[in-house]
């Protein structure tokens, strides 16, 4: 145990860094406060806004330009190659795997997560002690994708059928009378869906909590009026509940889509993109940091960027509309 806590000294470094940065800021504040008269405003703007703008310019704006330029260059980033990297992404024979998989991910994982989350939200609304269930279903959201990968790796663990099963899924298959359960993570193309299950496991809680709040926010008199008119069950659900929470539903769906488009950790930890499970974000990492092909890596990053834009724009427009209605 003492060995474990020996590492705590590392915290000293970071606390010192925090102290230094905060101390510097206080010093600048002290100096800035001495500015008099007309200089006050500009000095304050410089001090308050300067650090943020500098960091954002170096960390996001400049890199975005460099990556875009890099996507038109060769592997070492020395010569321009036109659209070659993009042509490679969309036409090279092996690449259809990660393109198809990413499309499947974007369609299936968000839809299933949102549908399950909505079902749970509706059921929770009819339950009296909902908080424990809510917490437990929401809990995976706090777990890292790597941790989730290990948790589900255990579920998908494969043993030869002659031995005792260690993975829960194989055991369930045997209990159901399947004599020879496959090695799940090598079982193409279904292994993709098994990886999506991990993402769904994580995202359902998010969808549930947001949608549950939206359902609770539907005014009681709207529901009562509908019930007086004889709407019950499915009709109440499809004619009243769904239209009332439509905006939130779309926000949930697109939010999960954005997360899914960039999914990296799960695929990397579970299969590292092997056995037909590669996706764009992991291919980007592999090209940029394993194969050191700056051009292809950059082009893949740009593809992700272009994929995210319409989702976010749609999302923002949806929220705008929502706001003007209210």
């Amino acid at each position, binding site marked *: 145990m003492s060995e474990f806590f020996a590492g705590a000294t590392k915290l000293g470094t970071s606390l010192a860094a925090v102290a230094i940065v905060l101390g510097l800021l206080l010093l600048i504040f002290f100096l800035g406060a001495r500015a008099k008269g007309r200089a006050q405003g500009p000095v304050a703007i410089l001090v308050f806004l300067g650090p943020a*703008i500098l960091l954002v310019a170096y960390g996001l704006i400049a890199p*975005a330009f*460099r*990556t875009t330029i890099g996507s038109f260059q060769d592997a070492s980033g020395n010569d321009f190659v036109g659209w070659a990297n993009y042509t490679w992404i969309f036409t090279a024979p092996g690449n259809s795997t990660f393109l198809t998989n990413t499309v499947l991910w974007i369609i299936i994982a968000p839809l299933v997560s949102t549908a399950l989350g909505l079902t749970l939200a509706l059921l929770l609304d009819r339950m009296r002690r909902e908080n424990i269930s809510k917490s437990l279903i929401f809990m995976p959201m706090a777990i*890292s994708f790597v941790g989730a990968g290990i948790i589900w790796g255990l579920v998908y663990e494969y043993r030869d059928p002659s031995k005792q099963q260690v993975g829960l899924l194989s055991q369930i298959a045997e209990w159901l009378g399947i004599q020879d359960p496959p090695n799940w993570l090598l079982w193409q193309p279904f292994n993709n869906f098994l990886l999506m299950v991990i993402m769904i496991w994580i995202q359902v809680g998010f969808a549930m909590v*947001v949608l549950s709040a939206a359902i609770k*926010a539907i005014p009681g008199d709207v529901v009562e009026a509908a019930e007086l008119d004889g709407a019950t069950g499915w009709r109440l659900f499809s004619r009243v509940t769904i239209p009332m929470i439509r905006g939130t539903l779309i926000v949930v769906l697109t939010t999960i889509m954005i997360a899914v488009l960039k999914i990296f*950790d799960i695929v990397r930890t579970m299969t590292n993109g092997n056995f037909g499970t590669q996706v764009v974000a992991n291919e980007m990492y592999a090209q940029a940091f394993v194969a050191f092909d700056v051009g292809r890596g950059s082009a893949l990053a740009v593809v992700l*960027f272009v994929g995210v834009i319409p989702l976010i724009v749609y999302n923002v427009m949806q929220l705008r509309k929502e706001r003007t209605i209210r």
Partner: protein
Amino acid sequence: MSVEAHQIIPMPQPEPSGREESIPEAAKRKLSSPWASGLVILITILWTIPTLGLLVTSLRPKEQAQNSGWWTFFTDPVVTFSNYSEVITGGDTIPSGIAPYFWNSFAIAIPAAIFPLVIATMAAYAIAWIPFRGATVVFFTIFALQVIPLQMSLLPLLQMFNNGWSIGPIPIFPDLNAPGSAQSLFYGTYIPLWVAHTMFALPLAIFLLHNFIAQLPRELFEAARVDGASHFLIFRKLVLPLTVPAIASFAIFQFLWVWNDLLVALTFAGGTPDVAPITAYLANIKGTYGAQLHLITAGAFIAIIVPLIVFFSLQRFFVRGLLAGSVKG
């Protein structure tokens, strides 16, 4: 983006609101069907079983963990903590232990949560309450930057840290290599990780905090200005204390985001025990020692226990921060 989700949706728990109040208790009871409860409980169990399996496996001796399913534990319970002691300090199977990585995660995540918050609060105050031309443009530019995925920044940022950066002859960022050395001064330190996480967190943090700070009552600032208080004084004495709830939510979200991050860690930390966080260690042992279920599960449990403690103890803040930040990355 769900950035705004918590603003349009009154955030949940535990106080009942809206419809619940408007329906009398009797009607509520009639509505709560045993079928609904049963189904929810079933799903809850289903959702919890995988994590339970992890915990149980991490407590079983090597032989049992590798040769029988964790559910057999309940008919043949043998508990050991040796997996934990082995994975913490390192042992015969996995030579390097998790302990240094565990502390690295704290050492990375604490400053990486504090820095962006301080800088973002300052920027948000400037945009909201220091009148200057172009404030709106600055705000919308920062807002728009949220569309840039992490992946766009990784390569250029890494090159910048390692080799500096210049456009033609104009130096934009200095080459930080010690003379004659191929390695940046940053190499093997937490600095690139802190800086990168701070940069990536800023757009969202500024956006959210601005929304909060801009809604503080105008009279407050006007009165303070009339009394001759400088912006610096107003910021310290008025803005910071009033913004604590928003800061707390975002701090928790950002801490967990950094704690759970793998992509930034792999890019900027390498895999050394000097700086790499616990996620990098886990990804590594999962790849190399995948068959050692008893050790990997123990390591994973150590890694997820911190976010779980945060989750269960600060759930309300957590929910708010998470809903606000779920599009980040």
